């Protein structure tokens, strides 16, 4: 009986080693969160929209793990924005591939870019509104399309409001990315 038990332990251990070796890519993996700040000082914008180029190769975490990123599993934003207009503004963010030409009008953005963020309300009359990363997830749309583009590390984001023109002061804006990395 004792020998049989020893034999079973050996078989079990061998099986565990085989499974462990076969699953190495899964074992040596993890989920990381990092943020890339794009607007770090007040910018006033009264245009139809504001755009900024996202290049994640500027980010230390992205740079360190770039070759081992398996999937993007989340995109969010952290922003402080002041609405100096007289009406409540509804914030929207569109994205386009970095390879596309920069759109020059809000109409072009709405027609050609993909809306990924909508519904955030900015109180009027100079009130500052804060959006943190978890809250921002409630406003994200077309996530799968966005994740695929973010895998390239580059994209163009367009921020605009429903009521044009708007009168906003963007204090800070950070893109927050959740990735799965594996080795």
């Amino acid at each position: 009986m004792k020998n049989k038990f020893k034999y079973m332990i050996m078989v079990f251990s061998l099986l565990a080693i085989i499974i462990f070796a076969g699953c190495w890519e899964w074992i040596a993996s993890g989920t990381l969160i990092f943020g890339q700040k794009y607007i770090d000082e007040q910018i006033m914008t009264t245009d139809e929209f504001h755009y900024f180029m996202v290049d994640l190769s500027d980010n230390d975490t992205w740079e360190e793990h770039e070759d081992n990123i398996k999937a993007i599993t989340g995109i969010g934003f952290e922003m402080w924005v002041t609405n100096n207009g007289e009406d409540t503004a509804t914030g929207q963010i569109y994205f386009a591939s970095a390879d596309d030409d920069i759109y020059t009008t809000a109409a072009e953005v709405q027609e050609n870019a993909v809306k990924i963020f909508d519904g955030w309300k900015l109180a009027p009359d100079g009130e500052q509104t804060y959006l943190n990363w978890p809250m921002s997830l409630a406003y994200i749309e077309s996530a799968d399309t966005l994740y695929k583009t973010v895998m390239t590390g580059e994209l163009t984001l367009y921020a605009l409001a429903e009521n044009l023109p708007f009168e906003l002061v963007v204090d800070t804006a950070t893109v927050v990315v959740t990735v799965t990395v594996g080795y």
Partner: protein
Amino acid sequence: MKKIILSGVLLLALASSGFATGVGIGGFGGVSIPIIQEDQGNGTVFGLRAKLKLIPGFTVEPVLGFNKFGDADSDFGTREGSKVTYYGVDLILGGMGAPIGPRVYLVGGGAFYSFSRDYDEDESRLGLSAGLGIEIGLGKTLGLDFRGKFHLVTQDGGGSRKMANITAGLNYYLGM
């Protein structure tokens, strides 16, 4: 849920057919620690398991578990953790239905894990688990069970979600 009920019925059928030389049921609870998952915090786990002794030294253990990860703090805000429901079958090497006193065992198995969280797409994936436990027999029908188990759940595109569950439980044996 249908699969869980089916598993239960199958278990009872096996037990009543005389296939099994012993049957037990148990409950467990403890902590769940995410491993390299910055979007999850330490949480809790609880669940139910059945125990079916088919041959000496080997026990089959269908299990149903519920994880709730804790909130994940980051520089960008605090996000609530995922809820995970899993059901599967474990194999235990080291017997069951302990007499009075401790007995160490190895455990490993597979399960389907369903992850859900606000603003994440629900995800059901296959996972593996392995660990070590000790059962302290409190008599012929009761066993106090302590277990540490590593879970690995595959993800789309490669990589995995991993967690360590450390639990304590109570098992009740019939027909030993």
